[in-house]
């Protein structure tokens, strides 16, 4: 078992012919992901990588190939529409890699998704990977190894950092999920913690948060009240000045809310072990191993 993606994933790539879309589609195929279709408006009827059919619309692609998951690489100004198009075509899981989507577009998208059965991961995220089964997004496959640690993170590269350290020590992962750095996203820490709690293969979880918002505090409430599996956490941005947006649209301390200190305190109170720096995470995880 694992969560969200695996051998049953039939992947559609929205924006398959773009620079990033094409590069990472190749990487996903090489990893062993079942990539069944691509969508690029105007290029329907063509083929990508010799054997992947390209369609003009998501609904055509779903009818023709039975795609159940979509990954989005389209530019920010078209990305909100791409998410809605995927949800209208009843794709179960939409993973949006695109960074820089206007936040009011995401307000609309999220309100619409709440009326559908589609789950969105991201936007502005690295996607997710279940080692040995499927890679959906841009997380480098070679740094992952199969095991029993679930990873959920708001950051892309910081996740790679942590997973790489785990793999080097022989500690494998069930699934690594990047939920993205935007202020409004599709899936929260809380959602993913619940999935890991219910996944029989996952024995412990790593949560990588950052400044801004209250998503980590909500996760802490769940950890304290419902979570039976050990959680190791790290919060980035202890040296971040207030009022400045630290790269991610969502990484900002505003009105004194969303500091690293308050998140670390909430997670510590909830019983999570909080690492001082990323390299320490693997040590804490190892201490939970039987």
């Amino acid at each position: 078992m694992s969560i969200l993606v695996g051998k049953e994933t039939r992947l559609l790539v929205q924006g398959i012919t773009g620079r990033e879309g094409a590069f990472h589609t190749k990487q996903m195929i090489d990893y062993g992901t079942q990539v069944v279709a691509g969508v690029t408006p105007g290029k329907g009827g063509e083929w990508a990588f010799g054997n992947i059919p390209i369609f003009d619309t998501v609904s055509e692609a779903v009818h023709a190939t039975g795609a159940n998951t979509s990954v989005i690489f389209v530019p920010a100004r078209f990305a909100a529409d791409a998410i809605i198009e995927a949800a209208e075509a009843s794709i179960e899981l939409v993973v949006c890699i695109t960074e820089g989507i206007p936040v009011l577009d995401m307000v609309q998208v999220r309100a619409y998704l709440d009326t559908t059965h589609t789950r969105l991961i991201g936007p502005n995220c690295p996607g997710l990977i279940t080692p040995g089964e499927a890679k959906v997004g841009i997380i480098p496959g070679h740094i992952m190894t199969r095991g029993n640690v679930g990873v959920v993170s708001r950051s892309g590269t910081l996740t790679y950092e942590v997973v790489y350290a785990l793999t080097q020590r022989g500690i494998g992962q069930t699934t690594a999920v990047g939920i993205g750095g935007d202020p409004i996203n599709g899936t929260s820490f809380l959602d993913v913690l619940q999935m890991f709690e219910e996944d029989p293969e996952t024995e412990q979880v790593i949560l990588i948060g950052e400044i801004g918002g209250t998503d980590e505090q909500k996760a802490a409430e769940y950890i304290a009240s419902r979570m039976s599996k050990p959680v190791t956490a790290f919060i980035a941005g202890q040296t971040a000045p207030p009022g400045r947006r630290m790269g991610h649209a969502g990484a900002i301390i505003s009105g004194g809310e969303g500091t690293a200190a308050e998140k670390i305190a909430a997670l510590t109170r909830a019983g999570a072990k909080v690492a001082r720096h990323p390299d320490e995470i693997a040590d804490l995880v190892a201490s939970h191993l039987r």
Partner: protein
Amino acid sequence: MNLHEYQSKRVFARYGIPVPSGEVATTPSEVRDIAVRLGGPVVVKSQVLVGGRGKAGGIKLARTPDEAEQRADEILGMKIKGLTVKKVLVDPAADIRKEIYLGAVLDRASRRIVLMASSEGGVDIEEVAAQTPEKIVKVAAHPFLGLRPHHARILADGIGLPKELINDFIKISQGLYQAFVSTDASLAEINPLVITGENKLLALDGKISVDDNALFRHPELAEMRDPDEEDASEREAHRYGLSYIHLDGEIGCMVNGAGLAMATMDIVKLYGGEPANFLDIGGGAQSDKVAAALRIILSDSRVKAVLINIFGGITRCDEVARGVLEAIGTLDGRVPFVVRLVGTNEEEGRQILAEANLITATSLADAAQKAVAAAKGELQ
């Protein structure tokens, strides 16, 4: 991106919000002309993008055109929190009976645009929120339905607005919501919204923050960006699409990914250094962007070492390596570089950099410790 008060009030006026009939000037004599045209007492208001202009002496009342000219002479050129005043807004002085607050923000937790009102206007709303939260009334608008009249009535009731002003207040609240949505704002506030001596509502001061990610569809707002209000190196970084924030330390950091960039700053501090900046080169950066990033870092004379920490995903290590080589070729070698490359195309990246004389590191902790040592001159 923040709009000036005069820009924000022009936007408000477009959405039916009553604002004073003021004009903008850059010289004392222009201020005099405006005061003559307006007739009667005026307020001369510095236009800089910081709070606390009044307390700093940047807002002054003038009874006559002569006095307005004199006040403008004092205000133009003064420094408020490090920013030089280059423009003033000259508004007719209002007869203020009561000051209230009306603002719209994007609430992350509820994923809604929230309108807030308070009977305590004219002061910092965050202070009101911290000290007397019961004095703030909030309503959330569903994105498909917008702000409805009953929402505005809830706000009006909550702040005890006189009944005869409620219809105007509804128009202003809906106008503010429309202005927020139409400009892709993350914040739009009227502070204060005043009740005048003639018992009318008037938006005396305004502030709009626009979502940078949405500027592509608002060319007219993008043009309002005031480069004088930004740090020079942050402005240069913006030109290259880099996310850069200038800080006060001695270790320049170039990282891909915001989370990793923050964690890199944190670990530099943990090992006894101070980060000179936050810099995220973003996903998929090409070599020219990397070279620009290094030039910006090194334009800060306090930087004593540069830490490059790249964990490739959408960013390819070979592209970063080419950018580093390009930058080293054009820059003097005044500071040591500590480089760590892992992830997509890392082998190619390492080969490209093998010939350059750089300090290499394996782990993040190793890189941070080496950078701190290099900045102290303990490692070359």
